């Protein structure tokens, strides 16, 4: 984590004008801080020297105006930083979701749904602290000391030198401290996350724990692990806070040094009251923003951690679809030749050197134990992943030419995708009507065509019926048949079916299989995965993995 992450500003282009405004506002604030100190010092000195309110009015008016202007600047800074935060979050969120949805289409990496949702929601919201507190403070930390030093230079050289010499020590110390504690901070953060995760796991699994009489025992385990964490953390904190003690003391002592020095020189008559007051008002202002920037940095750490997680996702390489070749549009055949795919955490590839073909107009059913790689075979054809060994090729015809065996990776991805009808085990359904969900496959389909494909898929439902959130208003069997109807609507030369008849009664299964046979009769190549004896029996060939 860096204090200013350049990736953040490169990626979120909308942040530039806001950043500029923050700098302008910060500079104006710094100038007003100096003006205010000057007015107060003059006013106090004048009252003391003249023993009364004589000549005070213009100074008070000036003071009121300055503070009024500072109030407006405070408000404006807040507005600008919140806008910046909202704009950057929105931009990052859009990019994140765009990338995540493309990664989610890849089954090997799709398991990060909850993580992405959390990140796009509350995760990025943690950036508010970064934009509304840390960044404006960072600007002030640079601008205020400069302006203050310039002003001090005009009034008192000795004080200026004291401040100018001690001031740089603070960032230097902060960097040293940061380097010394960064590793332990990261470890602590990691442990804290793990503890939180462990706690959630216990709360979620409580019925199970209780059923085995382990409910109360867990409370002791939670106490033990959190206590252990507390004692190790306090050990690191003692050192981490020690460093900020040094910083704080350094800043305070520098101010004290200036104040005492000024006082002594005034006793000697080398300095007038107004200058003395101005110096002790301004000197702390030079240190204040620098000290606060450290505090705000910690407050914005959560936001920066979220940004790190977001960039990790944004920098995940995408499956490259660089192929240019035209895909066959009819009489399409496919062939797997010695195909293996490795999975993380498993010794055996699945599938392991699988070879099979599906000719145009043929129905092939793949069977095998769960985990043998049946669904993976389909994902290879969908272009969601590539084989670690072997070749997946297609052949067939376009309108004007014949296409010989071509690797799936060499095909133009978008064109190839248009040749596939696919029914997943859990077909996607968005809230809306059945018709809306079917037309995803072909937006210009007429109502009559929708009724026809629904009929083919053995589903006698009104296309205008609402399907509910995630298709909840449909039964699992209805949902699967709706998915099949959608695939049929596409009229593609290749049909991929993952457990198309699971959970269906015998009569409905027969309807579905009739529809599948009818597709094959039209010359469509059908590859399906199934366990059901009747479904397997309806295939032309059965391949076991």
């Amino acid at each position, binding site marked *: 984590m860096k204090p200013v992450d350049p990736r953040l500003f490169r990626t979120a282009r909308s942040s530039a004008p806001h950043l500029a405004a923050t700098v302008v506002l910060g500079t104006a604030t710094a100038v007003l801080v100096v003006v205010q100190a000057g007015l*107060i010092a003059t006013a*106090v000195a004048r*009252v*003391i020297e003249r023993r009364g309110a004589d000549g005070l009015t213009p100074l*008070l008016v000036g*003071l009121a105006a300055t503070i*009024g202007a500072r109030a407006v600047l405070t*408000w404006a800074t*807040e*507005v600008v930083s*919140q806008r910046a935060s909202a*704009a950057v979050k*929105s931009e990052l969120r859009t990019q994140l979701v765009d990338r995540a*949805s*493309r990664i*989610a*289409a890849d089954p090997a990496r799709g398991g990060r*749904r909850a993580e*992405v949702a959390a990140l796009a929601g509350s995760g990025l919201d943690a950036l508010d602290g970064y934009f509304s507190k840390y960044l404006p403070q960072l600007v002030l930390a640079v601008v205020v000391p400069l302006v203050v030093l310039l002003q001090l230079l005009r009034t008192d050289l000795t004080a200026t030198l004291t401040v100018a010499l001690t001031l740089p020590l603070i960032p230097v110390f902060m960097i040293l401290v940061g380097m010394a504690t960064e590793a332990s901070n990261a470890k602590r953060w990691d442990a804290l996350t793990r503890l939180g*995760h462990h*706690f959630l796991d*216990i*709360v979620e*699994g409580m*019925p*199970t*724990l209780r*059923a*085995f*009489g*382990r*409910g109360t025992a867990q*409370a002791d385990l*939670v*106490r033990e692990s*959190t206590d252990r964490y*507390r004692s190790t953390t306090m050990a690191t*904190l003692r050192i981490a*806070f020690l460093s900020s*003690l040094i910083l704080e*003391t350094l800043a305070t002592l520098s*101010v*004290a040094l200036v104040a005492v020095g000024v006082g*002594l020189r*005034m*006793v000697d*008559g080398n300095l*007038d*009251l107004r200058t003395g*007051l101005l110096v002790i008002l301004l000197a*702390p202002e030079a240190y204040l923003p620098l000290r606060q920037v450290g505090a705000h940095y910690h407050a914005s750490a959560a936001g920066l951690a979220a940004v790190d997680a977001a960039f990790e996702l944004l920098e995940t390489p995408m499956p490259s679809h660089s192929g240019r070749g035209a895909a066959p549009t009819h009489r399409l055949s496919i062939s797997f030749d010695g195909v293996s795919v490795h999975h993380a955490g498993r010794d055996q590839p699945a599938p392991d050197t699988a070879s099979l073909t599906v000719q145009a107009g043929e129905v092939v059913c793949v069977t095998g134990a769960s985990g043998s790689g049946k669904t993976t075979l389909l994902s290879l054809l969908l272009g969601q992943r590539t084989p670690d060994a072997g070749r997946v090729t297609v052949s067939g015809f376009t309108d004007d030419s014949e296409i010989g065996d071509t690797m799936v990776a060499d095909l133009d991805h*978008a064109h190839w*995708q248009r040749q596939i009808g696919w029914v997943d085990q859990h*077909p*996607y*359904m968005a809230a809306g009507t059945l018709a809306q969900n079917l037309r995803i496959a072909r937006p210009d389909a007429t109502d009559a065509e929708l009724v026809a494909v629904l009929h083919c898929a053995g589903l006698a439902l009104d296309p205008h019926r609402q399907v509910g959130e*995630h298709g909840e208003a449909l039964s699992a069997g209805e949902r699967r048949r709706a998915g099949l109807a*959608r695939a049929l609507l596409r009229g593609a030369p290749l049909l991929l079916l993952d*457990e198309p008849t*699971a959970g269906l009664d015998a009569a409905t299964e027969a309807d579905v299989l009739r529809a599948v046979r009818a597709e094959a009769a039209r010359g469509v190549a059908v590859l399906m995965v199934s366990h059901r004896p009747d479904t397997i029996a309806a295939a032309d060939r059965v391949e076991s993995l």
Partner: protein
Amino acid sequence: MAVLLGTLAAGASVALAGVSAWLIARAAERPPVLHLMVAIVAVRTFGIGRGVLRYAERLVAHDASFRVLTDLRVAVVRRWSRLSPGGTGSLGRGDLLARFVGDVDGLADLWVRVLLPAAVTVLVTLGSIVMLVVLLPAAGLVLAVSATVAMLVAPAIAVRFSSRATARLAPARGEYQQQLLTVLDGAAELSLYGALDQELSRLHSIDERARRAETRSAWGSGLGSALGMLSLGAGLVAGLIVAASAIADGRLDGPGLAVTVLLPLAVHELVALLTPAATQLPQLAASAGRLLEVLDAPDVVDEPVVPARSPTGPLGLRLHGLDVGWPDGDVLLRDLTLDVAAGEHVALVGDSGLGKSTLAATLMRFLPPKSGTVTLVGSDGSVPLSELAEADLRRAMSWCAQDAHVFDSTLAANVRLARPAADDGELGTAIATARLSEWVASRVDGLDSMVGEHGDTMSGGERQRVALARVVLSHAPVVVLDEPTEHLDDATARAVLTDMLDALSGRTVLLVTHRRDLLPPDMRVIDLGA
């Protein structure tokens, strides 16, 4: 302790400002240096003292915050272990649960971020006011007014705007999350059908709506800080006026005036930190409310004051006139009477929504019966479940739910929780009986392989087998199976159920299910719908 240290630390920094002002103003009168020595020493003492005190305060405060976190978590787990799954009401769903856990963690540093600074500020401000009153009563009054405005009114305005902004944003956020999950779920299909971009742009327009709401709310949220600044200014001007008139009639000397004017500046620096802290209050109050709801929830099932002795020998189960339902809901199943002999396998079959899971929870005494009794029948007598101590009950009965929770730990730890005293041989046998040996063999770390969050490196069937291995290891003579094959495809469901019933032969089993077709033909079936 932390409040005391914090007050001393903040007090030192205010005092530092006051003494410095006095020192300068006094020095201007050019007294002998000796007269300044006390002030010079004081400046140095306050300077060093502030840093040291602040260090001590932070250590104490963080330690306390960790202790609070530990106590809160332990309290929640203790309470939860008496409530879950029966009395948790709306908290049953995963996302709400995650938010609840976040509430607990957020509350733990509530007082480091909000309460401690507030207490410290109030104490230091009061101290400063008292000091000014001694110097010049009118100046004390001015500080009292301006600090009150900055301490109470400014945070109140900030809180009002921030909670209004949250209320306006919430619906757009909710809609966004819903649509996002839908899109991520269907990403593969949407991408295949070329509809992904369209869905993403719909998502973007919701986000755009949220962004506009957020931008609009920014106009209000800076008002609190601006008001704090204005009250400082008003106090400063008023302080100068009263001090000037006091000095004119000799009630105040020069150094006194410098203190009167500059001390409030240091106080306001402290007070200004309250407004940002206050904006977190509405959120924290909501968290506290949700937490109290759980901590104050009454027990779902009362433990017997004097528990009965657990029956021994082979155990059967007797249901007599049993009505089941949720504590504040209707009766779902009525007048169930049934004798299950020791070692017998019985299926209780009924359609979805009939109350089967409620029945299973009642049989496990997670819920009390609406009326009637469940009795454990042993060779030396019978005892109603309601008269057994929790520990005895759990030793006698075990349970496997429709989606058994798999903890993010190793396979061995997940199974061993059923009986931590079990040795490695027994563990191995339980895993083999549940037919997980193949999974173990396929992993590099074998039994000690991590199963992932919610067991997500396993298939649904494998997860149910983990639950079976627990039941096998537990040695409990009576087992309740609640839809153990739900969410599995037909072939896996059949295989898992067959293995379960085989593994549990000799034990008393009550299987609650809606899948009559999966049952072995010779099993005794009770139709709950009849």
